[in-house]
């Protein structure tokens, strides 16, 4: 069976010199894949490129066997991909409720009310803030709103750029549990993480990116065990 998402020899950039070059990896259906790497390695750029937010200069991206290159971002949501960017990921002047609502416009879920309820279940902190403009939330609360919005359209594949950045340990745990949970419902997840150790513990596969190129790939466990990876990217010495 071919992978759900297959990235082959991908090069992309922001108009200047290419930021990522010849990047390849596969994400199987129903798995959690994580991209790791130092700051500025091009992790976010990979996600943005898949989501048609940067210009592809070479290579192929296939989703369900059809090419995504050249598609408009807004149509990707309708085929079941949703994304949470690293920064600027909430609508600051819309209320939390409206932020969640926006998630349903492009690809309405079967039962919006139930989906919303599920999301609020996940992030009970948000209940008290439903009417508040999202721009007035704390850093962590914003992160919850952003994830909530992406979940509202019941996606097949989620692209998450550092979903746990700024979340407290309890929430970090909750998010990772959540990722495991939604994977059970048939959702595939590709995420970028700097909380790499924890991420690798739940990830089926990890891909390390350095200087815009593939550096290492493997199962989560294998990468955790790899001394070299550990020293260079996971913050040094043994666990």
């Amino acid at each position, binding site marked *: 069976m071919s992978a759900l998402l297959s990235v082959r020899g991908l090069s992309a950039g922001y108009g200047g*010199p290419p930021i990522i070059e010849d990047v390849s990896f596969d994400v199987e259906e129903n798995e959690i894949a994580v991209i790791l790497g130092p700051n500025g390695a091009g992790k976010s750029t990979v996600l943005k490129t898949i989501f048609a937010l940067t210009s592809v200069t070479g290579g192929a991206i296939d989703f369900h066997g059809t090419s995504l290159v050249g598609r408009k971002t807004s149509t990707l949501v309708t085929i079941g991909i949703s994304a949470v960017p690293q920064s600027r990921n909430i609508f600051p002047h819309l209320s939390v409720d409206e932020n969640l609502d926006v998630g349903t416009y492009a690809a309405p879920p079967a039962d919006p009310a139930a989906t919303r309820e599920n999301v609020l279940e996940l992030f009970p902190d948000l209940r008290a803030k439903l009417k508040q403009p999202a721009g007035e939330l704390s850093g962590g609360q914003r992160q919850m709103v952003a994830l909530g919005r992406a979940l509202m359209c019941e996606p097949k594949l989620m692209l998450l750029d550092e979903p746990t950045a700024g979340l407290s340990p309890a929430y970090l745990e909750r998010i990772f549990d959540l990722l495991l949970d939604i994977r059970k419902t048939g959702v595939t997840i590709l995420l970028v993480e700097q909380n790499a150790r924890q991420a690798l513990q739940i990830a089926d596969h990890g891909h390390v990116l350095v*200087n815009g190129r593939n550096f290492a790939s493997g199962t989560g466990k294998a990468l955790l065990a790899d001394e070299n990876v550990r020293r260079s990217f996971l913050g040094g010495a043994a666990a």
Partner: protein
Amino acid sequence: MTELSGLFFYLVSVLIAGGIYALLCLALNIQWGMGGLFNAGIVGFFAIGAYTSAILTTPETAKHLGGFELPIFAGLIGAAIIAGVTGWAVARICVRLKSDYLAMASIGIAEILRLVIVNESWLTNGSLGISGIPRPFGEYTAGRPADLVFLAYVWLIVLIVYLVATRLYNSPWGRSLRAIRDNEASAAAAGKNVERFRTQTFVIGCAFMGVAGALSAHYFRFLSPSATDPLLVTFLVWVMLMAGGSGNNRGAIVGALGIWALWSVTEIFTNRLPPEWATRSSFIRMLLVGLLLQYVLQKFRAGILPEKSPPLHFEDEAERPAPEK
């Protein structure tokens, strides 16, 4: 021969007007290009400068305030001071406003100033205007050659303002100003007194706009509210700066000259249209100007000379790391 000398004097006139616009553009570049202050009321400060200098340098008349008969240079200084002080007062009220809001406020203030100029005849002789405004060295020159003297005068001032603007831009002051432009909160966290910087910027820019106004009053020798058309002052100057490249002083001058030449020269061509078009040629010209403006905007996205960070003079070039990849 007369053809040639005619063209020469036309060129001189384009350069005089272009020089005055260059001043306005440099002033706007200080406010917008460095300071991010969206001043859409340029014409107000221009008018203040023009009227100040006109009132200071004209002979006594019963029609309006005046009779000081000061030398022209004093008129320019006066224009700079009064325009600067007005700028300071405006800045006191408005400088906290964010970009587009400042634009709206400054349009409003310019419009109010225009109404004052038109209505307060004791001060400005209202819509009848101030006549008999002298030119520098007017006693010694006459006729068309006088324009040459004025040309030199204008560009001398452009040069001075350019030097000042460049020094401002290349300095730590300019750097902090650009930082404030990009992010106020974090500039404040870095100890920058945002309001003070912005007020300084606004005042300096307004003073230079006043000087430009003064020069044009002396150029026209006559000043009436018809010289304070926002279309030809505020908007055209914005177009010039965006076309030339905001954040770049040389770009400001290039933009001023280029757009003014474009504006002026188009008429020569539309005048050459066949006679059936004669009554419409002016509108064809406006259309042409509108279209050319679009062309310039699309073609030079970041202006003809885009903003670039000032050089660090003491830097050893060899130290500069080659960009990776």
